[in-house]
């Protein structure tokens, strides 16, 4: 068998070797607790603050607007629960979009149990949120809106600058989960009035287990993790210094290579989309035709089920992802696909390809060598598929 083909970069990314190199000294000779008052501690503080400045520069923020966390899920928790609890006296209504990552949907459920009203905004058929649909849901009681910069699943990019401008100055805060977009799209907090922004280190080829939350100056949160008061009291716990140094190194590389790398990925994506849609009958692109992440190609195939597709691809040495229910813990199909207007059986037939830094043109060729036959084989045994 030929080499393994990994096209599931949205699930996990390898750490860039340059990042590993930057991190290594901080496990051994450059260890230290930034809270200590001796030289070792001072050195750790310097590394921590330098890293903070690096991550801030990556998103056009000020260093003191960056809080390090253990990853995007924690950032989302701190942003949503921390903000909602702080703003409780001003209002108890939160708005999120239907196409958010599962962590935000579950945080929404948690807020409902804590006495908040949570409203969801449906997307159009391409997964785009219309700012007017947010506006029509804002009431005097609304304190927070959360919309992801792009969908981690179908890759649709949201009109964040327009949403941010619309909410700016109205007293309603905007949280943006930028995990799917970071490293692929330019993100500039000095130009877009977002209040809270979640980042993950691994999604820019940094180490897993690290993330950050951007908190615009003047935006106040209640801490969710209580302890020694690190990170301005918002995220207690001794800082994960090697991880934080790694995230900053990853951010630096990402910023340098972003435009070139995104163009390279978009080319592969476009080639795969064109090949699949022209070669495989009754195949469809999910998500937006143009406003989509440069690394994301998301398809559905009439009459077949995604997990069967995924297993067959796995047998050919190709790693991909699916929105099928059969591969999820709940056996529910992807809420993102359903909210785009797909029927359950259509959502089940979906397959997601995400390219990344170590993807090559040959990966697209390999997919096209095997995918048409796999689809044809599964369709032959499907009672739902009829040639038109």
């Amino acid at each position: 068998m030929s080499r393994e083909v990994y096209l599931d970069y949205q699930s996990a990314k390898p750490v860039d070797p340059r990042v590993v190199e930057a991190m290594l000294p901080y496990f051994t000779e450059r260890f230290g607790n930034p809270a200590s008052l001796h030289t070792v501690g001072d050195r750790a503080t310097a590394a921590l603050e330098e890293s903070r400045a690096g991550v801030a520069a990556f998103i056009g923020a000020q260093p003191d607007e960056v809080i390090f966390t253990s990853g995007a899920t924690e950032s989302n928790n701190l942003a949503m629960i921390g903000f909602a609890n702080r703003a409780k006296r001003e209002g108890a209504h939160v708005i999120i979009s239907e196409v958010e990552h599962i962590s935000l949907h579950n945080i929404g459920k948690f807020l409902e149990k804590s006495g908040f009203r949570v409203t969801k905004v449906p997307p159009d058929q391409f997964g785009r949120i219309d700012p007017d649909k947010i506006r029509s849901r804002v009431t005097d009681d609304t304190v927070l809106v959360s919309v992801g910069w792009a969908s981690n699943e179908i890759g649709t990019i949201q009109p964040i600058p327009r949403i941010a401008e619309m909410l700016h100055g109205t007293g309603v805060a905007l949280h943006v989960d930028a995990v799917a977009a970071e490293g692929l799209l330019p993100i500039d907090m000095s130009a877009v009035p977002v209040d809270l922004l979640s980042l993950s280190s691994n999604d820019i080829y940094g180490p897993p287990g690290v993330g950050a939350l951007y908190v615009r100056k003047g935006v106040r949160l209640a801490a969710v993790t209580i302890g020694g008061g690190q990170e301005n009291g918002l995220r207690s716990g001794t800082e994960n210094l090697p991880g934080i140094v790694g995230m900053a190194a990853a951010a630096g590389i990402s910023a340098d290579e972003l435009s070139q790398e995104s163009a390279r990925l978009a080319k592969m994506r476009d080639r795969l989309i064109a090949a699949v849609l022209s070669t495989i009958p009754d195949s469809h692109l999910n998500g937006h035709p143009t406003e989509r992440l440069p690394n994301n190609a998301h398809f559905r195939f009439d009459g077949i089920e995604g997990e069967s597709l995924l297993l067959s691809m796995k047998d050919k040495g190709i790693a991909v992802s699916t929105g099928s229910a059969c591969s999820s813990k709940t056996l529910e199909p992807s809420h993102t696909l359903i909210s785009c207007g797909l029927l359950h059986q259509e959502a089940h037939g979906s397959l997601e390809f995400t390219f990344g830094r170590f993807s090559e043109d040959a990966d697209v060729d390999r997919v096209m060598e095997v995918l048409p036959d796999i689809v044809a084989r599964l369709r032959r045994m499907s009672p739902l598929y009829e040639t038109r």
Partner: protein
Amino acid sequence: MKSTQYSEKTLDHFRNPRNVGTLEGDDVAVGRVGNPVCGDIMEMYIRVRDDRIADIAFQTFGCGSAVATSSMTTELVKGMTLDEALAVTRRDVADALDGLPPIKMHCSNLAADALHDAIKNYRSGRKLEPMSAEEIAGAGTGCGVPAVAVIEGIGDYEGRGVYTAVTDVTQLADKRVLIVDKGVASARLALELTKVTPRVVFLTELDALGLPEDLATQVKRSDVKVLFQSRLAAVRGEGEVEKALIHDLDEDNDYELFVDAVVLLEP
């Protein structure tokens, strides 16, 4: 345990499924089961001779374990008497596959259910084929539209996503349109709309298209998505149409479909 953590035997039956296909003949009965929520639909065909399963075939839309359990079920029961086959349980199928991930036990349930359904249909002499369009058209139902049921909320969205007439299809460009079957005019409109939007859903209470044959063929070949045995139960949304609640007459359950417009042509 991961939902795809399958035994070698399960993977073998997934990769090389036995007895895939359909059977035909007077001594053949079909069983069909499906769970639209978790996405598995299965058909079992049995040929019965001297009260034994002489031949068996299946078709499956489903995940790895749905395929594997269908395949394994056909192997297990081939040659059995009908009573013996009725005694085969989901547990037997799962055991024969060296176990299944717990979350997937419902899939093997389906394979045994489809078999039991086929045996029941054989014994009752029931043929499980949907009526053809001609049969429905000839049944004297005119355009095939059943009595109007109450659609909750429909009055609130007049002019805000609910249409009783569409004079210019471009007003629905790029919208997800749900058209309720009102006969020929509604089907023609559905076809027309596929020129301006990729998403047109045609909702009919019938289990086949009750349209003249050439029009039915056109709809089948088009990008119109037809939902059979379905009734519009409610229209929902924040100030405008955002979702349709659809009642599945076959499964007797409701589900929400995200749409931007609902078309109910008035005669």
